[in-house]
């Protein structure tokens, strides 16, 4: 399926938060996935598989540390586990983008497998508060029927 890059970034960020990442890491992860999607179709569900891995936060802390410290591409870290491969590639693209180097030709749309989109949506939904009458009536500051 195709989605806008804005949709993809927003959904991945919220899904990463729904998976338990701090907001700041979720933001960087979303940028990385957008960078991957700017290059190519995202096949399979590795984005969500990565997010649900127990070490996802630790790995992202290391990768963002490298990104924060260095403005040029870094050597691939030793002992990169298999789950990290596509994410690392995304970080490599981010390095290139941030250093103003090679940019992939802009694609008008991101394309991803629909199974991934739905799995991301499920994680994203975990960031939203369950509905309640109190919330419905008080939270938005308007009546349910705000006619004039």
């Amino acid at each position, binding site marked *: 399926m195709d989605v*806008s890059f804005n949709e993809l970034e927003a959904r991945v960020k919220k899904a990463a938060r729904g998976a338990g990442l701090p907001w*700041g890491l979720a933001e960087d992860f979303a940028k990385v996935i957008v960078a991957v999607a700017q290059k190519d179709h995202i096949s399979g569900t590795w984005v969500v598989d990565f997010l649900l891995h127990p070490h996802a936060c630790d790995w992202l802390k290391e990768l963002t540390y490298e990104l924060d410290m260095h403005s040029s591409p870094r050597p691939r870290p030793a002992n990169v586990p298999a789950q990290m491969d596509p994410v690392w590639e995304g970080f490599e693209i981010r390095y290139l983008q941030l250093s103003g180097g090679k940019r992939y030709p802009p694609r008008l749309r991101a394309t991803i497998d629909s199974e991934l989109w739905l799995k991301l949506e499920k994680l994203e939904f975990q960031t939203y508060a369950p509905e309640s009458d109190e919330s419905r009536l008080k939270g*938005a500051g308007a009546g349910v029927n705000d006619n004039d």
Partner: protein
Amino acid sequence: MTVALRTPDKLMKLHRLGSFHPSRMSFMYQLLRRMGRENWRYERQLFDIDEQGVGRAVLTMHGPYRSYSLVAFAHDLPDELRSDRVIAQAWDATFCLFDGVPSTEDIDRLETQVPGQETARLTPTELCLSRANRSVRLWQQVVDALSAGRQPDEQQLAEVGYLMRTTAVYGSGKFGLCDRFAIADRPELHAPFQAEMLTVFLIRQFVRDLINHCAVVKGGGQAVELSPELARSLGLGNSTGLGMAPFLVNHPRLIDRWIAARESALAEIAELAAFDASSLQRAKAKLAKGVAKIPCWRSRHPYQIERVAQLKADMLKLEQVDCGSPGASLDWAEENLSDEGREFWATCLLEAYPQIADRWSEEMAIDEAAGYEIDGNWSLEQTLNAIQRHFDWALKCDWNESETARVWYVSQEKLEPRLGERADEPLEAFEQPLAPGRDMAAFARSLQTSEAQNLAAFLRETPEFRHTARRLQWVCEYPFGEIHDNTISAALKPIDMLRLKLSFFGATYFDPRSDRWLRICMFQDAPLADELSLGNCEGWG
């Protein structure tokens, strides 16, 4: 020329921001000036609406390089389903802005999607998605009058100000719409929210045509059209809620560009040695127009009633004062007026010096995809100093129960943004990161006890501050992007945040219905699409 700007610690207070007025730098004014200057041509391509008011229409503006079309679908909505909340499922009319002129196949496809609004899947040829509801107070009265061959009561029109009001205008890639980056380089869409403003402008035109159509259906040959004068006096309403408030906090660099451009224009004006006669005349004319319009600014909300009364009193003072120079007049306003009057006088000065204001208007856009990295080489001392410099107010706040009383969250119900009470509702797990002051104070406390070598090492240990660290580095470069007030306090009035954004849109008659819900009017007194020209594209507000 480098001149002193008003400082963020004075300007970026919520009460002050909630006193901003529309000006010639606002986005709907920018749009009409461009279209008038470039001689854009209006064309109604299709108006196929039946006797029940149901059908489709296509309204196009042709610019020098491209055309943009409003594709409208009119519906027969039972009164009991009409709601302005995001949680509504149906509307009187639904719309999208199409990039170019749509084919019949395009319209057929859009008819399967646009009426569903948040359930729609759109494509890169669609730029905006919107919907609107009729004013129950006014719609039928106007149809009755026109169908009987007479114009509606002017006073009643003025009391409402619009025949329909939008309840959302989506853009920037939502629901599959075109991404901002794909159109941002077009000169006509480079300034912020131009596609959204064009959508609203054309909806207003559609509403005029729809009410004339309904009058003819009812009155046949006896019916008359709404007079151009009355049609012009009506804007398009808008009902809006908390969705705009998170936008302000989530886009600090964009907000900085808007406010910095306005402040830079004012600073340049303030440097002028004296008013010249024609500039002073323009400022006074803007003031006189404000005085004439203020009786029309109606609200039942005590907060706004007080604000309008302050503005009225300030305007009287402004009419009597004689300041020799623009800078002296700004200083005088600062000392003698309320926030309402100070910011209104600022809009008068922008109107007085259109060349300066319009030049700075071109500086209000930013590529938010760039500049996302964090400089991890900052020392912790450097980081703390930056917090001290830009968030002094937050460090002085003790962040007790009252100061953290509110929680921003998003409901599972149609993803409506809401504000809850921390002590009363189990919402913390769903809290959105919309309290930069509280988070910055916590960041500072953690930095003070850290032995990390630098910021990157600190964030590796404590990634929960990564979002806040990025924000801090942004504010150093974009100081007008940060609200210098507590956004989760028990005393918070979210409508101040909404008014800031709406003033940059160009919205008028800000009318709160509660502390987080309001109505406004857009394009009131503007020329209609079929009469827009170089001669009337400015000075209408």
